[in-house]
């Protein structure tokens, strides 16, 4: 499934300082749909270059990270259980507190 992933707020540093990643994510063995939970596994195994604890915590994202599916807070679409569709955009952004 073709997805556009975007990392911001410093998270891009974990992904070779590249913010936007066009990826093709296969569904899990024997399934057809892809959930955000599966996407997080896939990112960890295929994209994450270093320090997974900076991004993940207990099968979800770490505190301080907002997840946005098609510019919509994932809390509004089921969080890790949200089902993704072809060409969806998923943004992972760490909250900033600088000023």
């Amino acid at each position, binding site marked *: 499934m073709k997805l556009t992933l975007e990392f*911001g*707020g*410093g998270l891009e540093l974990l992904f070779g300082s590249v*913010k936007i990643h066009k990826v093709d994510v296969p569904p899990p063995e024997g399934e057809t749909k892809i959930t955000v939970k599966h996407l997080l596994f896939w990112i960890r195994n295929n994209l994450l270059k270093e320090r997974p*604890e*900076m991004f993940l915590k207990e099968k979800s994202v*770490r*505190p*301080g990270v*907002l997840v*946005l599916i098609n*510019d*919509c*807070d994932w*809390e*509004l679409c089921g969080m890790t259980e949200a089902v993704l569709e072809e060409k969806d955009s998923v*943004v992972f*952004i*760490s*909250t*900033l*507190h*600088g*000023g």
Partner: protein
Amino acid sequence: VFASGHSMSADMIRRYSRQLLVPAFGVSGQEKLSKSSVLVVGMGGLGSPVALYLAASGVGKLGLVDNDVVELSNLHRQIIHTEGFIGQTKVSSAVSACLGVNSSLKVKEYGNGLNAANAVQIISQYDVVVDATDNLPTRYIINDACVATGKPLVSGAALGLEGQLTVYNHKNGPCYRCLFPTPQPVSTRQRCSDNGVLGVVPGIIGAFQALEAIKLASGVGETLNSRMLLLDALSTRIHMVRLRGRNSECVSCGDAPQILASNLWEYDYERFTQSTLSEEEPKPQNL
């Protein structure tokens, strides 16, 4: 041009004439603004444009909070301060700049900064609050005090080449704790003093914060409640994002809140966030 029945002097009409001409703002927006009060917490990169634009636009009363002094390394982004104020308090420098732009402004300075002990008492005196701070514990204090006293909170942040902006605790939108019930782990945090910031990025976010504060104070337009603006300045890309609503379980704004105006002072924000209220001194820069 302008009908009678308003409270504006001839000088005010001259000064604000261009705003009075804006149909959606007009005399009623300007009058409401002139009777409103806004508290700006932080006189740094964000607070500089916020304070200047609020002062210029005709907010009635402006409260300015900061416990820091002006340093040379501030001046690349904190355009309210000038070289002549290096070493003086940021609030006194900001007050001087705001009055230079608009001597009819009522302005109050809070040179001791905001903390759990004084937040409710200070914030309760204002209609709108702007978070222009640079550290996590103060962001939670401001949020909780705004929720406890029922004030909308215009929250901005900037780091590196990115900015974020939203309005918390307004029209059943979320508060800061609804979005971030658990503080970001210390090891993952970035600060302006460690990671830098291009000066104009807080300038953009701060100008947007002033806009949101003016709309809240004048009752005009739609604000960013339940929405967040994400700015990537490196490529000038913007995401406008739809946020969750208020969380009924939130310890701050939920149906059974635990942090109240009466007990906020005893909440240990530094322990909760595992960090201190002031941004650390920057490391010395070596060649």
